[in-house]
């Protein structure tokens, strides 16, 4: 997994509340048994004029020249709610998104971000509104910088916000750790637990 230490880039405000994973990647765009090839389907219902076309909708923010090379999304409440599809995060990552700043996130989506090297940053609505305003005058120049080690978001005009993140999540992202590998370090604990657990609840072993 690509580590996330520090990143600065073009930030696009997509401030609608409840942007769900169906909107991030419509089901029809999940065509293959693969984690790849999803970037094109990102926000397809908004990004393209017609559902199955690839004609860009000029009104959609990511299609506007000012927001080319967006790597940070400024979102609204409950970002990534809905379906658990990890495809939403794979699509964001493939498109080049490194971080999403929103007041709150869908719980499964949040976990999926951490597992795939995208940093979910929780800031309050006002802070996000001021960041959005800050970037909107000249998105290419007025980039947003995020420092994970310092847990700090800064804007071009010098606004600064600190954010919280669980220590475990932070470490996973900073080091780009493989989650399964990390847990397997505790394999002896798992084995001990399992043995005792099944002794107490023999009916949970195997079928019935």
């Amino acid at each position, binding site marked *: 997994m690509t580590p996330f230490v520090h990143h600065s880039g073009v930030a696009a405000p997509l401030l609608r509340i409840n942007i769900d994973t169906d909107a991030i990647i419509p089901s029809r765009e999940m065509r293959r048994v693969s984690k790849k090839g999803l970037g094109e389907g990102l926000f397809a219902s908004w990004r393209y004029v017609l559902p199955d076309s690839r004609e860009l909708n000029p009104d959609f923010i990511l299609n506007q020249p000012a927001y080319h090379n967006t790597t940070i999304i400024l979102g609204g*409440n409950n970002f990534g709610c809905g379906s658990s599809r990890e495809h939403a995060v794979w699509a964001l990552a493939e498109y080049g998104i490194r971080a999403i700043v929103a007041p709150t996130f869908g719980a499964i989506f949040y*976990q999926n971000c951490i597992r795939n090297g995208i940093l979910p940053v929780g800031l309050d609505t006002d802070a996000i509104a001021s960041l959005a305003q800050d970037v909107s005058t000249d998105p290419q120049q007025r980039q947003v910088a995020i420092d994970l080690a310092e847990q700090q978001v800064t804007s071009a005009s010098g606004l600064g916000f600190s954010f919280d993140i669980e220590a475990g999540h932070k*470490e996973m992202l900073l080091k780009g750790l493989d989650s399964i590998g990390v*847990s397997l370090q505790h394999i002896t*604990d*798992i084995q001990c637990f399992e043995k005792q657990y099944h002794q107490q609840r023999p009916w949970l072993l195997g079928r019935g």
Partner: protein
Amino acid sequence: MSQTLFEKIWDAHLVKALPDGTFLIYIDRIFLHERTGSIALQSLAEDGRSVRHPEKVFCTMDHIVDTFPGRGDETVMPSGKDFIQATRKEAKNAGITLFDIGDENQGIAHVISPEQGIIQPGMTLVCPDSHTCTQGALGAAAWGIGSSEAEHAMATQTLRINKPKLMRVYFKGKLGTGVTAKDMILHLIGKYGAHGGAGHAIEFAGPAVRALSVEGRMTLCNMAVEFAAFTGLVASDEKTIDYLKSKAYAPSGAQWQQAVDYWRTLVTDDDAEFDEELIIDCDEIEPTVTWGTSPQHTCSIGGQVPALSSLANENARTAAKRALEYQGLSAGDAVLGLKIGNAFIGSCTNSRLEDLRYAAKILAGRKVAKGVKAICVPGSQQVKASAEKEGLDIIFKAAGFEWRESGCSMCFFAGGEHFGAKERVVSTSNRNFESRQGPATRTHLASPATVAASAVNGYISDPRDFLESGL
């Protein structure tokens, strides 16, 4: 020390508290489906990892598989066959149990897991599907995860997670005639917002919950995720125990009693504390439908689309405005009488036998209004077979409903079958998001009773007008 049900389950599964503040939690069962299960199994194998306990992993074909009679691996969705065949292959290689197309027990994951007794009180179960919370209805901790987390669970039989906060939603009083579990949950989300349960494991409790059947409790828990909850659950009781008796994967012989003795301990202690508690008086719940594109956009059947000015804040107003444009409605419009072109009875929310019986009660001796496309998709082959045994299929078909094979079907648009742009659908499913049931399709969520009544009239209708004796 007094504990809540969720805390008891949590403690029983705690392998280790980790220094970073997360917890390593043991996972009893993992459920997969062909949409994401294929990818999870494939990716696990590619990384050279194996499934630690194949006997604890189950998989079904529900999301992409067609629901037309006579279906096979081919699907209306382009490339659906690839998902189906990859899943079959990977499931076989991994040695896990698969409920394949043609299996008499195939169906929607969250319908068949309880039906087979795979989920049991006190268990932890995860599935790469957000509506896994449905299964909390059996007194278990069941929640949706992503594919990578599913890989993690299969490889380690654990997940590393944060402890959710605890909420109790207490439904006091008694439901009125024609009011169902679906109306309870829509009402709750409408009242407290789609974000109201964020980060919480929610225990649904109170006399109205106890009065629900186990199936009704599944409907209630199903939409906990639409309330942004980590999961929802209902303490098990004698109904749960009866429900599980002699299910295929439930304990048997001497182990049955052992399990039951344990299950009976799985209730919230009297003075246990929750981080938050909501109380809903069932007197205030009427048949409820959604008007917009968020599950919080609800009103009672006799109500109206609210004025934008009545909404809490600018964000809510912007979202509602957009929702109204999408839905082709205006503030002040009455929901009752809204003309529909389609009716859908199905999904893991409302596709069990009890749901079909509710609908059939209204449909018996009646016909769907002219021009309304009406579809019933039983949640599992078992539900379908039981319904047919009672002759419900005859009622549905005589009324003009299509009678399908089990699966998710048009609960969501996978790229295959859909209702069409700007088509108005009254649906027993759980999501009314933009384009959820097809590009630009307009969804109104409701109970099976409301959907059946609306199908008959051709416009959104109050089921109580059809029910002399009550449900």
